[in-house]
C-alpha cells in the first residue's frame, strides 16, 4: 500500500515559487496499479519522484505499507522500491546479469542466490537466460532493454514499484506486447505500483485506478471505468477525449453484457421447427445450429427456413463470427461492424455456445453507467467534496 499525505513540492525558480505538486493525498491499495495521468507539467512525475525522494518533498508524508518513510534512510527506502524510468537507464558497463543483480548485491545477497534470482527473472520476462545474461545492454533492442529494466526493478522483490512512463519510448507494437506481459506478471506478483503515463489508452489498459493531475493538483482519482463514465469536470472530460465512451469498450468484458438466453436448434430438427423457434425467440434473421455438445455448427436463416423444407443439417450456413466471454467489447463491436450484424453468439472456454451479445445490450450497458445528466453529476460531486 502506498499512501500520500498532503505531499507538496514547491520549486524556487528565478520567476518565483512554482508549486509542482499541491497537497496531494491519495492511497493506492496493496496489489493495485495506479496510473498518474495528465498533460506534461501537471505534477504527476514530481509526485512519483517524491515517493523515492529523487525529488525531496517540501512538505507532506509518504507511507508505504502503513510505515511513515520520512525518517527512513534514503538508500534503504530506495532499495525497497522498484524503480523503472522511461530512459531505461541500464548500466552499459555491466552485463545483463550484473544489471539485474545490482540491488540484490547492494543488499548483500550471496552469489548463488542472486545468480539464481537473475535466471528466474529472465524466465519471468520471457528472455532466454543462457542467451542474454552475459550480453551487454547495447546489444539488446529497446523492448528487450526495458524488459531488463523491469526485471532489475523486481530483482529484490520490493513490495512497491514506481514506473515513470516505462513503455513510453518503445514502438507501439512492442509496447502493447510488453504491457500485456507486464499485466500478466502483475497478476502473479501483486505489487503495489504507481505508474506515470500521459497516454489515456495506456492508463485505461493498465490501471486499476487512475489519478488525473492538472497544474499540480489531483483532479480525479477513480477506477478507469468511473473516470470514463463520470469525468469530474470539463478538463478531465476534454483530456479523456470525445470518444471516451468508445474507450470504455476496452474495459467491459463480454461476460458482463452477455445474455445467456439463446435459442438454438439441433441438426436433426426440421426447418419448420427452426422457423417456429425463430419466431418464438423473436429473432429477425437467423438461429444457431448446435450439436449435442452445444458446439456451434452454423446458422439457419429465416428466409431459408420459410421457403425450404427439410432438415437443418442439410442447410446449415457458416457462422460469421463468434466471441468468447473474456473478449472486450471493442473486439465485439469490431466484429459486428465487419460482419454487418447486430448480434454475435458467445462461446465459453470449452467452445460451447453459452449465450449471445447484441448491439442493443452493449449500448444499454454503456449508457446506463453514465449519470443521468452530466451537469447534475458535477454539482453533486462538488457538493460531496465540500
Amino acid at each position, binding site marked *: 500500500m502506498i499512501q500520500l499525505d498532503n505531499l507538496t513540492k514547491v520549486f524556487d525558480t528565478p520567476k518565483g515559487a512554482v508549486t509542482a505538486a499541491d497537497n496531494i493525498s491519495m492511497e493506492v491499495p496493496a496489489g493495485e496499479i495506479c496510473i498518474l495521468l495528465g498533460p506534461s507539467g501537471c505534477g504527476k512525475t514530481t509526485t512519483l519522484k517524491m515517493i*523515492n525522494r*529523487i525529488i525531496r518533498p517540501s512538505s507532506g508524508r509518504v507511507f508505504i505499507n502503513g510505515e511513515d518513510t520520512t525518517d527512513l534512510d*534514503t*538508500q*534503504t*527506502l*530506495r*532499495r*525497497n*522500491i522498484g*524503480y523503472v*524510468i522511461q*530512459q*531505461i*537507464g*541500464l*548500466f*552499459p*558497463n*555491466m*552485463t545483463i546479469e550484473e544489471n539485474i543483480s*545490482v*540491488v540484490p548485491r*547492494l543488499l548483500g545477497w550471496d552469489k548463488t542466490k542472486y545468480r539464481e534470482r537473475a535466471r528466474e527473472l529472465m524466465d519471468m520476462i520471457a528472455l532466454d537466460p543462457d542467451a542474454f545474461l552475459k550480453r*551487454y*545492454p*547495447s546489444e539488446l533492442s529497446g523492448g528487450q532493454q526495458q524488459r531488463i529494466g523491469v526485471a*532489475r526493478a523486481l530483482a529484490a522483490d520490493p513490495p512497491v514499484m*514506481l514506473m515513470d512512463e516505462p513503455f513510453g519510448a518503445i514502438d507501439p507494437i512492442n509496447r502493447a506486447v510488453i504491457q500485456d506481459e507486464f499485466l500478466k506478471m502483475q497478476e502473479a506478483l501483486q505489487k503495489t505500483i504507481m505508474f506515470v503515463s500521459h497516454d489515456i489508452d495506456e492508463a485505461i489498459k493498465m490501471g486499476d485506478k487512475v489519478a488525473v493531475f492538472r497544474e499540480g493538483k489531483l483532479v480525479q482519482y477513480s477506477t478507469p471505468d468511473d473516470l470514463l463514465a463520470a469525468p469530474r469536470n470539463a478538463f478531465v472530460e476534454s483530456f479523456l477525449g470525445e470518444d471516451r465512451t468508445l474507450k470504455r469498450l476496452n474495459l467491459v468484458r463480454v461476460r458482463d453484457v452477455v445474455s445467456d438466453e439463446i435459442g438454438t436448434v439441433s441438426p436433426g430438427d426440421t426447418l419448420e421447427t427452426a422457423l417456429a423457434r425463430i419466431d418464438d425467440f423473436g429473432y429477425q434473421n437467423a438461429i444457431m445450429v448446435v450439436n449435442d455438445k452445444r458446439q456451434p455448427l452454423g446458422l439457419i436463416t429465416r428466409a431459408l427456413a420459410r421457403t425450404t423444407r427439410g432438415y437443418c443439417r442439410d442447410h446449415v450456413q457458416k457462422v460469421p463470427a463468434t466471441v468468447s466471454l473474456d473478449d472486450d467489447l471493442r473486439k465485439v463491436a469490431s466484429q459486428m461492424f465487419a460482419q454487418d450484424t447486430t448480434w454475435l453468439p458467445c462461446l465459453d472456454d470449452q467452445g460451447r455456445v453459452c449465450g449471445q451479445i447484441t448491439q442493443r445490450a452493449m449500448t444499454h450497458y454503456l449508457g446506463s453507467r453514465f449519470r443521468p445528466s452530466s451537469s447534475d453529476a458535477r454539482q453533486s460531486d462538488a457538493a460531496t467534496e465540500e
Partner: protein
Amino acid sequence: MPIQSLKGVLRLLLLAAIFFAGVWSQSSGVIDDFIFYLPDVQYLAVQHLWLTAMSGGLAILVAIPLGVVLSRPSMARAAESLMQVLNVGTTIPTLAVLALSMSFLGIGVVPAVFGLFVATLLPIARNTYAGLKGVSPALMEAAAGIGMSPTQRLLKVELPNALYVIFAGIRTALTINVGTVPLAFLIGAGGLGELIFTGIALYDPVMMLSGAIPTAMLAIVVDALIALTAFLIVPRGVNPSRA
C-alpha cells in the same frame, strides 16, 4: 587490374629503395656512427622514461581525483571556473612552464619533473571531468533510484562509464609528455634531449637523430601500451574498440 599492377610496381620500388638505403648506409658508415651512440642512447632512454614515469605518474595520481572532485554536484559552480583556468593553463607552452619552474626550483630533475607534471596534469584532469560529466543523467537517476550511495554511484556507474574518456586523456597526455621530456635537458635533467640539443649545437645530424628517433619510438610504444591497457581495462559494454 591496372591499379593492382600499379600497386605491385610501387611495392617493388619501395622494396628496392629500402634495399639501396641499406646498402648506402652500410657503405657510408652511418650505421657505425649510430652504433657509436648506442650506450648513450640506452642510458639516456632509461633516464627519459624515468622522467616520464615520475611526472606522468604524479599527474595521474593528482589529476583523476581532481577531476572527480570537480565533477561532484556540490562543486558545480567552482568547477566551471576552475576548468576555464585549466583550459587557459593548457595553452601555455611547456617550454615556458619549464622555464617558470626552473626560476623557482633551480635546475635539475626536480624542476623538470614538476614542469612536466603541470603540463601533463591538465589534459588528464580535463578528460576525467568531461568523462564524468558526460555520464547520462538517466543513468545517474537509475543508479540513485535503485538505492546506490553517492560513493557506489561513483565507483560502479560513473567511473566505469567515463573510463574510456579518462584513458583517452591519459594517452594524449603521456604521449605528449614523452615528446616533451627532451626539453627537460635544457634545465639540466638529462634524457634523450641531451643528444638532440647537443647534436643541433654541434651540427651533428647523426647525434641529433640518435636522440630524436628513440624519442619518437618511445612515444609510439607508450601510446600503444596505454591503448592496450585501455582495451583490457575498460568494460566491454562501454568500450568502442571492443564493441
